[in-house]
Structures are given as C-alpha cells and as structure tokens.
C-alpha cells in the first residue's frame, strides 16, 4: 500500500457530491501528479485528502494509519503539508516570518530548516526581509512551498504550484520539486501544465468530473494516445 492514499473518496462541499469514488496516492520519494480539465475536482480531491471537506465514503491512510477523522491541523502534526492553489502566503509578513509561521507547531530550533529552504530557493534568502505580498508570482510560489516545507513534512501536497509563472520559472520550480522528492518526501501535485508535469511524475492520475479516468505511470500516460488526444492537446 502507498504511503499516502485517499481511497474511494466520495463527497463535496455540502451540496451535491463533487468527488465520486476517487482514489489518489503517493509513495515515499515519489511524485504523483493529478491532471484534468478545469472544474474536474482536482483541488477538491486535494482538500479531501487534507481533511478540509467531508467525505462520506472512502478513507485517507497515512503510513498505514487511518487519518480520515483528523482535522487539517492534526494532519500537519502527522507530517503532511499543503500548499493551496490560491492565497498561499501571508502577504503582509516578511519571507522569513512566512517560514516561521510554517513551523508554528514546532518547538525545536527551526533555523536549520530555514537555511535549507534558502538553499533550495536562494532568491528567498536575498528577500528574507521583504513582505511576501510584494514578491513576483514565481517568488511567492517559492515562499509558499518553503512555508510548507518548514514542518519537515513526510508528504508535500501542491495545488498548481506553477499557476501564473513564466515557463522558465516553471522549469526551475519543477527541478526544485524533484530535488525535494529525492530527499524522500512524497509529493502529490495538481498541475495545469500536464505535459511537463507528467514528464517528471512517477505516477499520474487523470480526473474527469470527480472520477478517476486514467491512472498509470507518468510515462505510460504520456504515451497513451487517448490521453494525449483529450488532455495533452494531441
């Protein structure tokens, strides 16, 4: 069984169900990518895995433990971290304060982790005193990822980390994410740029209308003509 798995999840925001029997998972040191059309329920699936909405069937397992009933905060304490799609930084706080807030639950010395984040994203070290709200889109995404890494998570969940950044910055972000995965962290990521994302993915999920349409390795999905035609633009 995978390290993190959301199994047969069905649920939504209180009205009609958005997810239907949806399963997504990620293994240690592995990058799992979710792609699909707009409104397919990708963000919803991420929130479901993180406990931010109710699923009435299915369960979420982390390292063999059933965490379906835990609050998001409790999941953070268990070693999960989440970068939401939008408003994922504290805009009027400095970069460094953003990182400190990411480590809010930790009581030990966090300086080492801060330095690691600056090593991963050198630009953040340069702008540590600047408010996150004043940074460019790409830099803000780096702050967001950095903040999530501050808890030293075992699982990092990213909802469209490259939304609104230039292709060069995107490649760079992907490189960093691969680097993070190499340290043994599982990564579960939603991406609009399906082609590039599947390229670096160990595992891929294609969601359509809240259901799993295709599930395979990233490479296999890239080579699947149906997937290419409908979701990768030919």
């Amino acid at each position, binding site marked *: 069984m995978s390290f993190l798995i959301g199994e047969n999840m069905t649920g939504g925001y209180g009205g009609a169900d958005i997810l239907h029997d949806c399963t997504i998972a990620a293994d240690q040191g592995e990058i799992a990518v979710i792609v699909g059309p707009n409104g397919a329920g990708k963000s919803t699936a991420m929130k479901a895995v993180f406990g931010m909405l109710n699923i009435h069937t299915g369960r979420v397992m982390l390292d063999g433990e059933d965490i379906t009933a835990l609050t998001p905060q409790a999941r*953070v304490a268990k070693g999960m971290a989440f970068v939401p799609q939008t408003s994922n930084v*504290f805009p009027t706080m400095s970069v460094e304060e953003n990182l400190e807030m990411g480590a*809010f639950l930790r009581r030990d010395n966090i300086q080492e982790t801060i330095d690691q984040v600056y090593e991963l994203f050198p630009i953040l070290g340069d702008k540590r005193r600047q408010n996150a709200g004043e940074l460019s889109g790409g830099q803000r995404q780096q702050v967001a990822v950095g903040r999530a890494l501050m808890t030293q998570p075992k699982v990092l969940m990213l909802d469209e980390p490259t939304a609104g950044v230039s292709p060069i910055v995107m490649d760079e972000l992907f490189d960093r994410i691969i680097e993070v995965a190499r340290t043994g962290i599982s990564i579960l990521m939603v991406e609009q740029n399906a082609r590039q994302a599947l390229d670096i993915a160990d595992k891929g999920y294609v969601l359509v209308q809240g259901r799993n349409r295709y599930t395979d390795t990233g490479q296999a999905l890239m080579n699947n003509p149906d997937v290419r035609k409908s979701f990768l633009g030919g």
Partner: protein
Amino acid sequence: MELLNALILMANFVLVPALAYGSQLALGALGVTLIYGILRFSNFAHGDTMAFGTMAVILFTWWFQSMGINLGPLPTALLALPFGIAICAGFVLATDKLVYKFYRQQRAAPVIYVIASVGVMFVLNGIVRFIIGPDDQAFADGERFIVRARSFKEWTGLEEGLTIKVSQGITVITAVLVVAALFWFLNRTRTGKSMRAFSDNEDLALLSGINPDKVVMVTWIIAAALATIAGTLYGLDKSFKPFTYFQLLLPIFAAAIVGGLGNPLGAIAGGYVIAFSEIMVTYAYKKFVGYLAPGDWSPDSLLQLLGTNYKFSVSFVILLLVLLLRPTGLFKGKSV
C-alpha cells in the same frame, strides 16, 4: 514677538490638545482595527467597551482614594488601570463566549457580527449607566499642570501662555509606550506573529497549525486593554460621561478607516489625522490672525470654520472622502 505669540497660541490651543486627543483616538482605533483584522467585523461596542473599562478604573480609583492610596503628583487612576483592564478583559471575553463565538462557528456574514455588536453595545450602555449613572464623573487627582500659563508668561515674557496638563503629558507618554509594546508584541513574539498571520490569511494560518481560539482570545484581551487605556486617558483629560464614549465611536471608526481597516500603523496615523482636523477646523483663528496681521488690525469675525457642536461632522466628512477616493485607507488596509 508677534510671531512667537501666534505660534504659542497655536501650540496651546491646537498642537497640545490635538496631540493628546489624537493619542486617545489612536489607541481606540488600534482596538477597532485589531478586532477588524482578526475577527473581521467593525465592533460597534468599542466605544462602550471604553466606557465600561474606564468605569472599572474609576471605581478602583475611588476605592484607592478612600484608602488613602495615591501616586503623589500622578493620578491614582494609573494605579487602578491594570485592575480596570483585567475586569474589562474578563467582560469582553465573556461576550465573546456568549455572543460572537457562536457566529464564528456558523461562519456568519460580517453584518451579523455587526448587528450582534450593536446588541452588545446597548447591553454595555445599560450596565455602565446602571452602575455609575449617566452623569459626569470626576476621578482625576494629583498635580493638574506640567506647565502653567501664568508661569510660562512670566518665564518667557510673552503675552500668550502655554498650558500643558498632566493628563495631556501622561496621555502622550502612555500612548507611545503602549504602541511600542504593541508593535513589539506583534512583530517580535510568536503569539503576536500568529495574530498577524491569522489576520493576513486565516485559512493558511489554520493550515500552519495556528490555534484560532487562542488568537481570538489574545485579540480580545488586547482590544480590552487598549479600550480601557484610551478611555481612561480620555476621561482624565476631559471627563467621564458614558454618552460621550458612544459618540467617540465615530471619530474612532473614521481614524481606523482613514488609516486602512486592519492596519495598526494606519490606525495611529488616522487617529492624529482626525484629531488635528477636528481641532483645526473648529478653532477660531481670530486672535491668531490678529497677531500675524500688521498693526493693531484684527478680523471682526471669529474666523472659525465650524462650530464645536459639529466637530463630529469633521470625522464624518473625512471618512466619506476616504471612502470616495481611497476606500482601502491611506495605508493599505484589508480588502474593501
């Protein structure tokens, strides 16, 4: 000489009173802006919270006075302040538990909180009048003046005197100390930073493991402390009358909005902007112009832009102008 007289006149009737009044408004507006930033509603009960806290301080002051405890030249109220703050904080936390908490759990619309705060305002209104009555209460004691007009005139040989009251000096010093402490708290401590984070982005704060209940509790306590301090300073400087504190709501809101709701620095700036505008617009410049004009000429009219009865309309006009031209305030506040 004439020029010096004119300057002293302005210092005496505009600068000194406006600095004191501005500090009082700034402290009040800080409370409003903090509540807005964290709890996301305009607290209409803030003026009456000030009245409530001040009332507690007055009762303690009287008690101390009756026991012969005092601070010498300083007002006894300063000694009573911590006790008043404790009582006010206790009351405010009780209202949060009984009233606001429910709407937080419901994730109610902001306007519902506002209505609830109006309800709390009237309850407070009733309690304060019930306990201490609707009339003026005197509770200032100790030395009255730092600088007296008479001795100032003798000392400088000028025609105009300068008066600085102890209450004005204390107001400004206390405001500086309180603001410094507050900013140290918000910018340097873990709890303070978590409050700012919560104000910035509530959802992300929750995802970071920040405990919302604690943030809300600390916010209420700080707001109660600020309200009590502001109210006590105002009461020492002018006098304590419950209805006046209700009326302070308008300039305080105006100060908070002018500075940008949710922005503490803005609240302070807003407090002084409102105070200076109010006093400058309602000041009669007749004598001032008389000094500056050549010879013995002086204008016939008072040269007063607005009567003091309308001082609240100054805050209101500034408020409307800001809403018209720059709804986020001078310093960027939270979303419109």
